[in-house]
């Protein structure tokens, strides 16, 4: 009983578990990138209201938001091989498990990011587009030079939140047998019969990384203010006078 939990073991396991941190980071960054690309496509489809595709996009977003990531993970794991085998006729036996993890988390992020991107682009005032046209810009020029920079600024805070949520939800990837932080913690527990210490290490890593990520996003939000804060400050000064 006295041997149940020891801080010395927590320190002993920490470097071993931390060494698997890059894999967790890889999953997060890879699937966020997939989500960003796919999500942008879905958002553009929904904004331009392309028939059929637009409705499919809505159903997809509803599915992603309505089902647990745990279920999505296993549907990707069992479903993608079936789909690829029967529709595309490609042998999936050699595929790494990481492929399914990327796909599951990437598709999940796509659903959430699509709504954020769509909301941000819509929230940019129509006057801005008209202003672009009035100085003779084409549609694409107006979008990329005027609408997109403003939308990016609006989308940044919610994107930060989803990014941190994604980081937390990668704690489920070990269920497919991925050796990330959680997988290593569990593995150490199996071989040494002391599981709790490993999980404590994982908790420490998750908490510290989340706090760092939050600070980074806060800093980004402040940095990318594009003078908005300054204008408010000036106005306040004027009002004070």
């Amino acid at each position, binding site marked *: 009983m006295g041997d*149940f939990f020891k801080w010395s073991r927590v320190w002993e396991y920490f470097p071993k578990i931390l060494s698997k941190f890059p894999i967790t980071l890889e999953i997060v960054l890879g699937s966020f990138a997939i989500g960003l690309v796919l999500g942008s496509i879905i958002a553009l489809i929904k904004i331009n209201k392309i028939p059929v595709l637009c409705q499919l996009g809505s159903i997809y977003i*509803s*599915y992603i*938001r*309505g*089902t*647990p*990531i*745990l*279920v*999505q993970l*296993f*549907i990707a794991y*069992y*479903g993608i091989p*079936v*789909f690829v085998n*029967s*529709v595309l006729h490609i042998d999936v036996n050699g595929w790494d498990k990481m492929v399914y993890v990327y796909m599951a988390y990437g598709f999940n992020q796509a659903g959430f990011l699509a709504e954020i991107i769509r909301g941000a682009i819509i929230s940019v005032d129509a006057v801005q587009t008209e202003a672009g046209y009035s100085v003779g810009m084409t549609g694409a020029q107006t979008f990329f030079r005027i609408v997109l920079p403003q939308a990016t600024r609006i989308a940044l805070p919610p994107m930060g939140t989803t990014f*941190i949520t994604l980081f*937390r*939800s990668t*704690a*489920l990837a070990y*269920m497919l047998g991925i050796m990330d932080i*959680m997988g290593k913690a569990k593995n150490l527990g199996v071989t040494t019969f002391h*599981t*709790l210490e490993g*999980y*404590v290490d*994982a*908790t420490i890593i*998750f*908490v510290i*990384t*989340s*706090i760092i990520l939050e600070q980074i996003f806060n800093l980004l939000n402040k940095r990318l203010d594009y003078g908005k804060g300054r204008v408010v400050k000036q106005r306040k000064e004027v009002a004070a006078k």
Partner: protein
Amino acid sequence: MNIDYEYFKLYLKYGISYLPNTLYMTLISLVFGVVLGSGIAIVRTYKVKVLNPIFTLLLATLKAVPTNLIMVMSSIIFTRNFINITKVLGINMKLREFNMLYLASFALVLTSVAMISESIRGALLSVPKVQYDAGYSIGLTKTQNFFRIILPQAFLVMLPSMMSNVISLIKMTSLASTLGVMDVLNGCLQKSGTSYRFLEAYLAAALIYWVISIILELIGKLLEKKLNVYRKQAL
């Protein structure tokens, strides 16, 4: 595509029969989340001394730790100390007889408190300062002012985020299946081991969760519409 619809239907039936457990866990975590969460939110909004920094630190930790990690750790500690706990409480019970559902709910409550208190705090902060002044100017006490003026307004702001919190909670209960709780997910999976029809089982589970989420979303929208009447009158 070789998906067996017979198995899919069968697993769907199994899954639905365990729906009460999932809803029960959601309800527990929602009730405790609202009760504890509103307390924490009030402390943090009105910056109560000493308690405020403690709760801020606690919430930052709870928000950062994955729910399944909390679940696994609490289950290890609980099962290890089960005999001591029963001795202290004076109950004669074996670990086998204990329903892991309550342990899973405990872990869910920890996450839901963090989630719900954040949305309550956001709603409370959204009420402009002028409203407090207005209440005090006509001689309301602090409590009267809070319950009669601030809370009704904050409630309208809170509603959409609360609805999405409930949906997140329902989805989160699926993590309880890792502890062996018979919820919707485990209900769907329980017979898939013999048939190796895992995809059908997970698809069935996904469908159940999806339908519940859609229903809840509709209810939320309906409520919002009904309650927005008050807001329009105010304008």
